[in-house]
C-alpha cells in the first residue's frame, strides 16, 4: 500500500465516523418533531414513516393544556422561568463579586477560596437531597419555585466562581487603581467598571448554568411537591404517566421542552461552547 492510499483510507474512515456520529446526534431531534405531529395510531403502526403522514397538530394543543386532572405546559413553563431567572441572576451577581474579590486577596486566601469551591463542585447531589428536603419541609417551602431558585443560586455558585476567577486573574489591575484615583470605592469600582468589562465571560457562564437549572430534575422532584409548582423537566415525567395512552402528546411535550433550547443554542452556540471549553476543567 502506498503512502497516499493509506492517507486516503484513514480520511475515509474519519469522515465516515464523523458523519455517523452527526446522524446519531441529529436524528433523535428530527424524530421528536416528526412523532409530535403523528396521531397515536400512526406512531404504533409506522413510527419511522415519512410518507402518508396524517398531520395531527392536536398533540400540541393536548400537551399545552395537559391531561384532564393534570397540569398544562403553560404552568410548567412559568415555573421554569421563575426558577431559572432567580438562580441565574443571583449566582452571576454573587459569583462575579466573589471571584473578583478573591483575585484581590492574598495568594493564600485566594487558594483557600478556590479549593473550597472546588470541593463543592464534587459534592454529590444525593448528599444534599435529604437535608434540603428537611429544611424546605421545616420552613414550609415545599412547592415554591422561588425557594428552589434560591437553592440553585448556591448550586451554580461554585462553577460560576471558578470560571470567572480564572478570567479575573488576567484582569489588568491598572483599571482598579485608576478608579481609586478617581475616588471610586471598591464596590463602586466593581459595579461600574469590572462588571461591564466582564460581560463576555458572564454571559457564557450564565448560559451554561441556565441550561443546567432548566434541566435539573432530581431536586425539583423532591422539593416541588405540589403539581402546580412543577418545572418543565418534572412536568415532563408527569406527562409520561398522565398521557400513557397518548404518545403523540408526549412527543409534542418533548418538542415544547427541547426545541426552544436548541434554537437558543444555535443562536448563541459560540458563546456556549466557548464557556464549556473555559469551564471544562473545573466543572
Amino acid at each position: 500500500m502506498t503512502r497516499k492510499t493509506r492517507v486516503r483510507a484513514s480520511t475515509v474512515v474519519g469522515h465516515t465516523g464523523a458523519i455517523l456520529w452527526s446522524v446519531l446526534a441529529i436524528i433523535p431531534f428530527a424524530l421528536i418533531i416528526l412523532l409530535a405531529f403523528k396521531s397515536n395510531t400512526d406512531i404504533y403502526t409506522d413510527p419511522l414513516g415519512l410518507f402518508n403522514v396524517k398531520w395531527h397538530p392536536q398533540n400540541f394543543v393536548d400537551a399545552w393544556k395537559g391531561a384532564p386532572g393534570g397540569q398544562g405546559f403553560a404552568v410548567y413553563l412559568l415555573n421554569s422561568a421563575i426558577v431559572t431567572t432567580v438562580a441565574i441572576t443571583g449566582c452571576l451577581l454573587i459569583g462575579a463579586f466573589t471571584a473578583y474579590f478573591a483575585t484581590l486577596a492574598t495568594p493564600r486566601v485566594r487558594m483557600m477560596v478556590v479549593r473550597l469551591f472546588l470541593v463543592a463542585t464534587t459534592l454529590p447531589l444525593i448528599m444534599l437531597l435529604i437535608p434540603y428536603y428537611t429544611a424546605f419541609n421545616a420552613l414550609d417551602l415545599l412547592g415554591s419555585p422561588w425557594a428552589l431558585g434560591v437553592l440553585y443560586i448556591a448550586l451554580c455558585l461554585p462553577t460560576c466562581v471558578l470560571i470567572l476567577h480564572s478570567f479575573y486573574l488576567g484582569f489588568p489591575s491598572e483599571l482598579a487603581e485608576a478608579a481609586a484615583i478617581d475616588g471610586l470605592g471598591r464596590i463602586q469600582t466593581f459595579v461600574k467598571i469590572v462588571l461591564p468589562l466582564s460581560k463576555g465571560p458572564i454571559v457564557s457562564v450564565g448560559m451554561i448554568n441556565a441550561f443546567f437549572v432548566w434541566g435539573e430534575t432530581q431536586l425539583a422532584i423532591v422539593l416541588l411537591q405540589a403539581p402546580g409548582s412543577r418545572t418543565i423537566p418534572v412536568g415532563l415525567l408527569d406527562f409520561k404517566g398522565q398521557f400513557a395512552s397518548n404518545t403523540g402528546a408526549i412527543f409534542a411535550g418533548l418538542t415544547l421542552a427541547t426545541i426552544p433550547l436548541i434554537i437558543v443554542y444555535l443562536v448563541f452556540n459560540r458563546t456556549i461552547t466557548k464557556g464549556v471549553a473555559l469551564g471544562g476543567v473545573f466543572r
Partner: protein
Amino acid sequence: MLAPGLIILAVFFGLPIIDLVRTSFTQWPGIGEARYIGIDNYVTAFTSPAVREALFRSVALGVGAALILSAIATVLAALVSGGIRGKAFYRVVWFLPAIAPPSAVAVFWALSVQPRSGAVNAFLGAIGLGRTHAWLADPSTAMYVIIAVAVWAGVGFAFLVILGGMEEVPVSVYEAASIDGASRIRQFFSITLPLVRPVLSMIVLLEVIWAFNGFTLVWGMTLGGPGNATTILPVQVYKDAFLFANFGLAAAVSVVGGLLLLVVGLAGQALGSRKGVDE
C-alpha cells in the same frame, strides 16, 4: 468582601452535610420526631444486598459510561483537530444532545425502545433484526440501554473540552513529527494523547461523577426497574426516603455513597487540576 460567597457555601453545602450525618443516626419517617438509633442504619446499609447491588450498578454506570463516552469523544476531537472538513458544523451538531434536558432525553429514549411503537425497534425491524424485544422491560438489557443513553448524551460535552485541550498543542510539534515521517496515527498516540492527558483525566473523572449521580436518566426511563434491575444509588436513596419513608437509612446510604465519590473526586482533582489551579 468574600463573606457573601463563603456564607452561601457554609449554609447550602456545609450545614446540609452536618444535618445529613445527624439524620443518618436516627430513625425518621419524614414527619414527627426523629429517634436516635446509633449506627443501626449503617449496619443495615452495609449488610443489605439491595444497597450493595445499587452501589455496584452505580459504579458500573459511572465507570462504563465515562470510559466509553470519553473514548468516543477523544476520537471525535482528534478528527476535528486533525483538520477534517466541516469542523464548524460538527462542533455545533455534536453538542446538541448535551443541550436537551436530561428528563426529555430519558423520556424520548424510553419511548424509542418500546417494542411496538418505538423508533429504535422499527429501525431494527427494517434492517431485519426483529422489532419485538422489550429492551427496558428485560432486566438483562435495561442497564445497557441506560449506559448507551448516558453515552449518547455525554459525548458532546466531553468532546468540546478535549478539543479545547488538543487545540492548545502547538502546530509546530506536529510539523516536526511529520518531517520525521511519523504517520497521523503515530502522532495521535505519541504526541496528542500524552499532551492532553491532564484534560483527559479530568473529564473522565467528571463523567464518572456525573454518571454515578445519574438519577434523572434512570428515573425517567425505568423508575429503577424492572424489579430492581436499574436501581442505582441515587434511586435507592430516593426510594428509601420518599417512597418507604425511611429517611435515616437513606441518609446513611447517601453518606456512604457520597464519601466514596468524594474520595475518588478529590484524588482525581489532585491529579488532574494541577495545571488549571496552581498555574
